[in-house]
């Protein structure tokens, strides 16, 4: 199963962790050493991840580069890493943006450098672990481990209201994840009771179909076991995305996070939510997914339009971009729950696109913040004369974020709209209005900051980008053009996985849509416990 015969995924995931340990051993004063080792380890991780698309077999939905060891046999936990067409590009995005995050912190972080880079590297390991894990226990561990460094990045190195924003972020996401934990346990015990094998292995858990007969009716809506478990996962992922109405942590966290924190938050962390939907909710609970499509569509469309409208009135650049994330993530969930090939492909590629363009937008705000220590749009204006390179790069990124043809955003949004249109043209119509609003707030933002007369005297002495700063933005711009002009290497590698998920959804539990065999079957023992299902409430003797 592992073409490389080498634990490449673990290598990619743990290189940053290794770097964190190394930095731990470095003296606090050796600032250069700390910076360069952080860069070296993120770069090494990125370089290692370049093997993945090269050796990736696009013809199969099966998990590749698999690593499996028995970890806690008593309760059926396996250390199970794998990669498929859904996670491939998100992993690449993570390793790529982590390098950028290190470079963009180079000069802007001066206080408590050592701890900062340790947390940043821990965060990278956590994020990669989430995308690699195919065991719920392992997944949950990484899912939570990721929160702690992010909490500290916001809380220690953030701006004015950092304490409030940090705890709000932590509490919100933790609340979601503990609810998901209940869902995981429910699935675990249901599977155990059905088959006698207690395991957290996601692929094995997918083999059982979970009951979709209604258990009770609430306000006229029937709820089955599958629906309830689906909702418990939904809570966690919807908070992470964030979907309306769970989005209120996002503007605060983004606004107060340091630039690198915002880049990672927007670029990767938000994708965890949509990744969770597509990895777990869709293939594991197909009936419930279909059951909740109207709700998901409504919430997505509200997010698209509401997010865009709030953007129009933001005086703070960073907050504006944060709200634009709400709108863009609405597109991604819209495409995903159209439940057809275009929609899902579009949503996956759009996850990458949003990571690139919104990450870059946060970098752009960060560059100005480093110089002027303000994020208020009213303080800026006419900067294009003073900083032509900056203005050019900003323009490209802005157009990418708006979805201009030739740039990456267009590919994703187009596929999503095609997908949505095929199901219901009204959805597509609403979504298109979001694109129009998106163009409006982005162009207006650009106009107010870059064009016009340079009226504020504080802006007269601004320096254009240094070579270091350009190295953070130029690679992203190149990627935007690549995906925009020649997306097929990206799309072709996700096709098999997307088709597999669609088969799971549309044929229900038909034998044709059996998940690929779990790579650990027969290799790793599963916990065997009370083979007969216990009825709730039955006395123990």
């Amino acid at each position, binding site marked *: 199963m592992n073409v490389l015969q080498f634990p490449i995924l673990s290598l990619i995931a743990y290189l940053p962790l290794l770097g964190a340990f190394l930095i731990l051993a470095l003296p606090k004063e050796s600032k250069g050493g700390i910076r360069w080792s952080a860069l070296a380890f993120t770069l090494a991780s990125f370089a290692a991840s370049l093997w993945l698309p090269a050796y990736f077999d696009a013809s199969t939905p099966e998990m590749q580069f698999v690593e499996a060891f028995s970890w806690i046999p008593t309760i059926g936990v396996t250390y199970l890493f794998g990669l498929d067409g859904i996670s491939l590009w998100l992993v690449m995005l993570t390793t790529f943006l982590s390098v950028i995050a290190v470079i963009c912190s180079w000069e802007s972080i001066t206080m408590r450098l050592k701890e900062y880079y340790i947390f940043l590297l821990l965060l990278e390991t956590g994020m990669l672990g989430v995308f690699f894990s195919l065991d719920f226990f392992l997944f949950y561990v990484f899912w939570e481990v990721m929160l702690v460094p992010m909490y500290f990045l916001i809380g220690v190195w953030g701006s004015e209201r950092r304490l409030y924003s940090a705890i709000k972020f932590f509490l919100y996401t933790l609340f979601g994840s*503990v609810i998901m934990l209940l869902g995981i*346990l429910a699935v675990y015990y249901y599977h155990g009771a059905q088959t006698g094998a207690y395991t957290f292995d996601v692929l094995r858990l997918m083999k059982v179909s979970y009951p979709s007969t209604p258990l009770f009716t609430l306000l006229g809506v029937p709820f089955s076991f599958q629906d309830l478990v689906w909702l418990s996962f939904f809570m966690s992922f919807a908070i992470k995305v964030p979907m309306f109405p769970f989005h209120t942590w996002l503007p605060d966290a983004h606004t107060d996070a340091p630039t690198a924190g915002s880049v990672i938050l927007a670029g990767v962390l938000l994708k965890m939510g949509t990744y969770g939907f597509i990895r777990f909710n869709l293939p594991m609970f197909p009936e419930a997914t279909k059951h909740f499509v109207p709700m998901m569509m409504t919430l997505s469309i509200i997010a698209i339009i509401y997010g865009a409208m709030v953007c129009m009135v933001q005086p703070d650049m960073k907050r504006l971009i944060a709200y634009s994330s709400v709108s863009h993530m609405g597109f991604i969930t819209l495409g995903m729950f159209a439940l057809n090939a275009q929609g899902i492909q579009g949503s996956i590629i759009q996850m990458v696109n949003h990571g690139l363009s919104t990450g870059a937008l946060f970098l752009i705000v960060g560059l100005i913040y480093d110089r002027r220590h303000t994020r208020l749009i009213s303080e800026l204006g006419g900067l294009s004369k003073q900083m032509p390179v900056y203005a050019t790069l900003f323009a490209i990124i802005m157009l990418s974020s708006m979805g201009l043809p030739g740039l990456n955003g267009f590919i994703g949004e187009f596929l999503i709209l095609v997908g949505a249109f095929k199901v219901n043209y009204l959805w597509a119509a609403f979504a298109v209005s979001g694109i129009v609003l998106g163009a409006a707030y982005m162009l207006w933002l650009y106009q107010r900051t870059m064009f016009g007369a340079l009226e504020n005297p504080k802006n007269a002495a601004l320096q254009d980008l240094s070579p270091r700063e350009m190295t953070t933005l130029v690679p992203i711009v190149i990627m935007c053009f690549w995906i925009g002009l020649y997306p097929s290497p990206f799309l072709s590698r996700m096709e098999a996985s997307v088709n597999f998920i669609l088969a799971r959804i549309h044929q229900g539990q038909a034998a044709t849509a059996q998940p690929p065999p779990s790579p650990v079957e027969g290799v790793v023992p599963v916990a065997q416990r009370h083979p007969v299902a216990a009825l709730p409430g039955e006395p*123990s003797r």
Partner: protein
Amino acid sequence: MTQAFNMADLSTALPEVVLSLVAMVILMLDFIVPKGRRDWLGYLSVLGVLLTLMVLFPQWGATQSAFSGQYLIDPFALFFKIVFLASAGLIILMSIGYLRNEGADRGEFYALILFATLGMMLMASAVDLLILYIGLETMSICIYVLAGFFKRERRSNEAALKYLLMGGFSSAIILYGMVMLYGLTGATGLKEIASALTADTLSNPALILAMVMLAAGFGFKIAAVPFHMWIPDVYEGAPTPITALLAAASEIAGLAILLRVFLVAIPGLQDRWALLFYVLSLLTMTVGNVVAIAQSNIKRMLAYSSIAHIGYLLIGVVAGRELGISATLLYTVVYALMTLGAFAMVILLCVGEVKGERIDDFTGLAQRSPMAAAAMLILLLSLAGVPPTAGFVGKLYLFGAAIERGYVLLALIAVVNSAISLFYYMKVAVAMYMRDLPPAGLALSPSRPLRVVLFVTVVGTLAIGIYPGPFLDLAKSSIAGLW
């Protein structure tokens, strides 16, 4: 009961005998060792604890009853005895520097801790109401004295008196419940009680009353809401190592006898007492967590957090059966480790005039001592149940037991509670990492034994979190043949 005294019985109680001998030796040496050099008594006590553990290990896997069937050696008892002895050892280690700092290094402190541990060991092995009660009182009386050990300090006196009154009160309630059980069945042995309970007596309201009495009495000992009012004041006033002893050992001992009595003596009423503990668990964790948010004294905060953790532990009792009880056992170890670690941190911050008791005392710790701050952070995350720490594995197992038995609502409330708890645990993390006024305090110079305690608790917390397999197996095998 009329059997003659048997020397073979004594050998089964050898660990208890060794421990009490060590405690008496410490008491005697206290007169000989001059003031200022009594650290040695502490080290000697730890040695005694280790010796007892060594004597205890041959009992691994054995099941043997002694003293006319009143005393039982089984994996369940052994499990708890190891927990008590390990906790006692760590508590003595953290006391050594603390007592010197407070100018109160007296040998009887260690001797009393050892005697209290002896009481707990009796409780773990007791399968007869009388032995059980004797063990309970041996433990309680020692801790009444220890809570008031700083006799010139008002808070310490208040703590001792409050604990004495509440403890005496609850002991009386337990005794009343026991009397009713005896009256209904004519037996004091737990197994005998179970077999004397016929279908007829099971529906007798007096039996229900006895059950409620016992639950209330044990509820006081383990500090379940609404029997928790004494906890915050006693925790705050008692010397910090004794607070740790109360939280990490005495409450677990209470839980051990609760499990034994309810599972062995009145299994026929499981439906009813499961409901009773359902309500107690729900109240305990919710009240504990919500009230903890408002605390500014860390000992009080940890007091309420320990109440909340008792609530989580009761989930396992509610779920009952193999899975629930083994989850409870596992969580006692986890809980003891993290609680001891947290109190050791409070002692660590105790330098000169700073008592380390206010959350503000933790301000800027990350810059003052990065290692100490990191250790505290790991303990706090474990208390909040964030992976990869022991707290997460423990909670996963407990909540899983509840889900498996269909107690979904209880599990839901429990996870919401753990999310709430994160808020107040992170208040300490905020102080340590995100506030920048390092107080002009003295440099931290933890004594060597305290370092050992912190190392053991932090490494243990991480070890159970990352590789829980052996601990899960141990908890599972320890309840074999319990009922």
